[in-house]
């Protein structure tokens, strides 16, 4: 069997991943039609390309279906409990930068820090009869961050997309989401809490600690890593 390398199957993340490998002498490419998720690896032997949704790569690494995978730190830490024991970080790749942040309406001039947020959550709950709602898809990371910061009286509401719009629609009072430039936030009249950085993320090459490695696969891994490390 060959060493399996999981890579995002579409978009800029896929293109940038291909570029990153090309620069290191490994050519990745999609084969067949545009719609077919098959790929080829040139420049190193014994490696198979597996095209996957970036969101599924953490799970595939954790069950050992793939040996190597490219995905964001945010997805690894959100989806895998005790992620350090399941995957090893091989190389931060220098693109796909995104920060998981807490943001509140700009006009909340009384809220700049997580400390303010806690006081506001208490007052909000007392007045409106429910907890302050935080819209996010990163439930575990945000909950751990808020628990650690000692914030009480909040609740998470699930938002899988267009999270910045939830405040205006009054389905949440604030959000926790990924941002790279902050432009979408500003356009939706939101601001980032000064100490509300939950996680800094970038595209990263991971190795599964769970997958089985045959002698051939070990050899292919060593060759590949030597090339990637120059």
């Amino acid at each position: 069997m060959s060493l399996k390398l999981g890579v995002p199957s579409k978009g800029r993340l896929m293109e940038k991943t291909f570029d990153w490998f090309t620069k290191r002498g490994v050519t990745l490419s999609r084969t067949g039609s545009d719609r077919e998720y098959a790929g080829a690896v040139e420049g190193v032997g014994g490696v198979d390309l597996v095209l996957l949704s970036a969101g599924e790569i953490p799970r595939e690494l954790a069950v050992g279906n793939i040996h190597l995978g490219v995905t964001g730190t945010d997805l690894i830490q959100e989806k895998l409990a005790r992620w350090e024991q399941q995957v090893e970080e091989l190389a931060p790749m220098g693109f796909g930068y995104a920060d998981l942040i807490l943001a509140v309406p700009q006009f909340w001039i009384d809220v700049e820090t997580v400390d303010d947020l806690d006081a506001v959550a208490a007052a909000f709950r007392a007045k409106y009869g429910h907890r302050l709602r935080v819209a996010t898809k990163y439930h575990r990371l945000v909950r751990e961050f808020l628990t650690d910061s000692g914030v009480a009286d909040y609740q998470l509401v699930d938002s899988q997309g267009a999270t910045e719009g939830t405040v205006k629609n009054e389905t949440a009072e604030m959000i926790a989401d990924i941002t790279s430039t902050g432009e979408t936030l500003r356009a939706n009249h939101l601001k980032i809490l000064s100490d509300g950085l939950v996680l800094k993320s970038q595209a990263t090459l991971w190795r599964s600690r769970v997958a089985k490695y045959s002698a051939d696969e070990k050899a292919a891994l060593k060759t590949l890593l030597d090339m990637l490390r120059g």
Partner: protein
Amino acid sequence: MANRSEIVARARRFRTNFEAAGAVLVEPPLLQPAEALLDLYGEDIRARAYVTSDALRGEQMLRPDFTVPVVQMHMQQGAEPARYTYAGEVFRRQEQDPDRANEYMQVGYEVFDRAKPAVSDAEVFALMTLQLRNLPVRAICGDIGILKAAVQGLNTTEVRKEALLRHIWRPRRFKFLLDRFAGRVALPESRAKILSTEGRLTGTAPEIGKRRSADIDARVDILRADAAAPLIADHEVAALEALLAVRETVPFAIEQMRDIAVDLPAILPSLDLMDDRVNAMRARGIDVDTLEFEASYGRTSMEYYDGFVFGLYAIGRPDLPAIALGGRYDALTRQLGQGSEIPAVGGVLRPDLILTLEEETA
């Protein structure tokens, strides 16, 4: 390791003991509506309990403890006074430590009685220690009621007291707030900006979301009033910190806390209550002179306990969770009682851990 049928058999024996002590057997369902638990514990419960759902009943949780359903049941239909026992599995989600069980048996004993809280405290503690009498365990007790009285008695604004009371169960956050109210840490720049201006500040950015500009104006007023209020006096902060650090056998702990009460006289009534409890424990044959007391015990893991708290731990096995634990939860009955309330105290045992300890000591 004891097998499941041994654990179940032992749980039954404990339950029979508790029935003999006057408790009525109750059997709450495994699935609990998530709403009440979420309302009580907040998001943190999602990290501790398994959540499931169907289209008809919405979110349900595999019961993370018996106390909440037992209180709900009592508040709806219970006659007073009442004693209940139960035995069954509880479920705790584990994301950090694979050695901790995510499903285990608990046997409990809960007392709802208005007459003499100190006597009920002693009854529950004595009954739990009696079940573990031949095992190498040590008991620790505390009293959240003393801490609450100390905060309520501080010579400062109600807003600050409420903020501190709200975080008694989050020690780090509590310390942060206390430091701020005592003037030990500087205010953030953003706060200074709000305080250096006057009048209404809202109105530049568009008003979006359910929290309205009136709410923001109200908080700005609170922040300005807070900045104008005097800091909490050094001697009070020092006394509160000394109180939180008390860690002694019961007689010495009481002595230390009586000294601290010179600066925090508001704790005197709860110290008198502790005296009553200690006397009631002595009357039940508990060796109070060697019993450990930690003023901060119960601050990190038992949010609904608000008075007497206790735990029994295996000596030489710090890796094991408490073999038995319990405490008083008057405020919980108020929260779940929809207008009514009743003093309540209870405790639970872990038959699986008890069997493990027995095997080790045999």
